[in-house]
């Protein structure tokens, strides 16, 4: 059995750590998201959501490299993600790529079925080893997210443009050269050290933008035309609450163990969206409120066309925009989205945030911006 799994930003690092430790045989699909999307679009229903199409493209390419089994997570609604596994199984079968699909979720048939599925992946390993591998993989996920957060902070502050991106890219490629959670963690540590040693402008006060929206398109920067890197290059510090490790810890571990979950976002969302409706709509709304309260300059919502929960969120966001004075830009992605138009909108939004900030500071200081210039700030 040769496994494969869908890409989503840095998840391949976590999954690699897990599968290496379990001693499983696997193929990582090629990293080119655009190509995957193109392939997937050919075979997926036209109105399926974008992540499904990209996943499908990933699987087809992985199959060609020898993979025969797909590993994905599932759910039980209300949004489409919970039925991805069945869609993949059926589509792959119809187009002549008969792959087995293992869904890591709590099956209707209960614990035994779940263990059977885990056995399929882990072979004869004992339960202790499996749990240890899961724990280590979780730790990798947490560390990778910390690393990403550090990049968010450094990009708008680096003295030499492009330094962070170079280190980050190097790290992402480097992961493929090592094996096992232990080596991956060492690589993460080293990358941390490299990043901490770069030259930064301590006095920089970059614009702060929160990213909210559907999980795939926000976590997978490539799908959204490398928005995180680009914002960084434009001198903007980004933040995103929804992360891979957050998903693992909050949605999988805490739920399974019935531990209290971090529901700050749900509380913040309550006046605007009174219930969990699926996907990440409640996070989108709640986190936008949290960003507003934390004094962020703006929020960007990203989601794939036809995404049901985010359409609900989009209808509500204008109310938050108005009540809390928080500018929100909504970017919708599908296979037809052109990069140029997308970038124009992004740049215009950042421009607006910059002007807003200047206007506010002008009000606060009572000084005219051109006066400040004349006194030698430039």
């Amino acid at each position, binding site marked *: 059995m040769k496994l494969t799994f869908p890409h989503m930003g840095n998840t391949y690092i976590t999954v690699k750590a897990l599968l290496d430790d379990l001693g499983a045989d696997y193929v990582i699909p090629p990293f080119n998201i655009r190509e995957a999307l193109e392939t997937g679009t050919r075979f997926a229903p036209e109105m399926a959501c974008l992540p499904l199409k990209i996943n499908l493209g990933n699987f087809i390419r992985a199959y060609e490299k020898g993979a025969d089994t797909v590993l994905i997570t599932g759910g039980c609604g209300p949004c489409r993600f919970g*039925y991805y596994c069945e869609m993949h199984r059926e589509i792959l079968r*119809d187009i002549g790529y008969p792959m087995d699909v293992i*869904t890591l979720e709590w099956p*209707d048939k209960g614990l035994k079925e779940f263990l059977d599925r885990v056995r399929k992946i882990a072979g004869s390993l004992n339960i202790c080893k499996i749990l240890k591998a899961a724990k280590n993989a979780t730790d990798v996920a947490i560390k990778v997210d910390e690393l990403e957060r550090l990049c968010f902070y450094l990009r708008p502050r680096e003295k030499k443009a492009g330094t962070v991106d170079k280190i980050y890219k190097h790290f992402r490629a480097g992961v493929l050269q090592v094996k096992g959670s232990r080596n991956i963690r060492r690589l993460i540590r080293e990358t941390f050290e490299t990043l901490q040693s770069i030259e930064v402008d301590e006095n920089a006060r970059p614009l702060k933008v929160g990213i909210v929206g559907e999980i795939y398109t926000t976590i997978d920067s490539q799908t959204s035309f490398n928005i995180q890197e680009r914002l960084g290059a434009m001198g903007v510090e980004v933040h995103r609450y929804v992360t891979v490790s957050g998903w693992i810890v909050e949605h999988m571990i805490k739920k399974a163990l019935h531990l209290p979950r971090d529901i700050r976002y749900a509380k913040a969302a309550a006046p605007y969206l*009174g219930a969990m*409706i699926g996907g990440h709509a409640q996070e989108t709304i709640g986190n936008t409120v949290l960003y507003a309260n934390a004094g962020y300059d703006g929020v960007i919502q990203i989601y794939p*066309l036809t*995404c049901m929960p985010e359409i609900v969120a989009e*209808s*509500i966001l204008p109310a938050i925009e108005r009540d809390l004075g928080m500018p929100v830009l909504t970017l919708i992605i599908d296979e037809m989205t052109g990069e140029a138009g997308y970038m124009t909108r992004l740049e215009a939004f950042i421009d607006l945030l910059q002007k807003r900030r200047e206007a506010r500071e002008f009000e606060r200081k009572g000084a005219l911006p051109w006066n400040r210039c004349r006194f030698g700030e430039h």
Partner: protein
Amino acid sequence: MKTKIGIPRGLFFYQYYPLWKTFFEELGAEIAVSGHTNRRILDMGVKSCVDEACLPVKVFFGHVLDLADKVDYLFIPRLTSVSRKEYICPKFGGLPDMVRHSLYGLPPIIDTEINLRKSGKNLLNAAMDVGSRLNCDKKAVRRALEKSLRAYREFREQVKKGALPPDIIDKRFPVLKKPSDRILNILVIGHVYNLYDNYINMDMLKKLRNNSVNLITVDMIDGCIIDEKAQTLNKKMFWYFGRKAMGTALHVLDRNDIDGVIYVMSFGCGVDSFISDLVEKKIRRKSDVPFIILTIDEHSGEAGFNTRLEAFLDMVRWRYRHEADVSSHG
């Protein structure tokens, strides 16, 4: 003066109106329903709703606006789930919030959550919540609920026997053209709000019925059969409509009296994007019964729609004659 409750003629209207009407009237309220969907209502909806929303939600917005200044309350429940272990659609769960934060100057909204996912008992709680907002005493609410459930069951029985919800609700007795041809049994799969809103589906049901078609809708298939079939799915279907559609599709494979299957979907519907594809796969793999997906959106022209529908019926008829020929000679 009686309190006036506005019920928009959209989304689950054709599924639950008899229940809602009885309930509110038993509690002494007066009901106002928005008009039948028309260009004006559609336009108002399209203008006030986010572009990305599906047509049925936009139409619903139009109906809300049609009622807004005529009523004391709007009844827009948060329909999270109407069946055990199932959901409807994220948009149903967020509907009152979408409406409240997109449209301004609305009367108060009765946005009680109806969530029967874990237990059907929650229905009573939901009824109590609605009752308390109208200052009704608990006993009256209980009585009203019982009575409305009875009305609902009666309504569903009628639908199962072949009456169409809009005909029952509007008390219409459709005059049908005499069949000029052999009567075809056509099964139509689609959300209630697409099937029974004549404006949205461009009078499709009437056109079918006037074309010597015996209509069978998802609602006319026995619920037990649907459930039994749906249970054979590899993974439990967690959408209420999805279960019904998939169960029906599988049931078609057991029958030999269905001449064709039409799947009506709205453009941009997340649920339909998956279900229509799965239904098509199930049917096409195991049977050669003609199958077509008709997509509707706010820009669909009636002419094109009619052409596709007629071509489909012609094909079904041709196939029938052809088969009849074969068998009579063979």
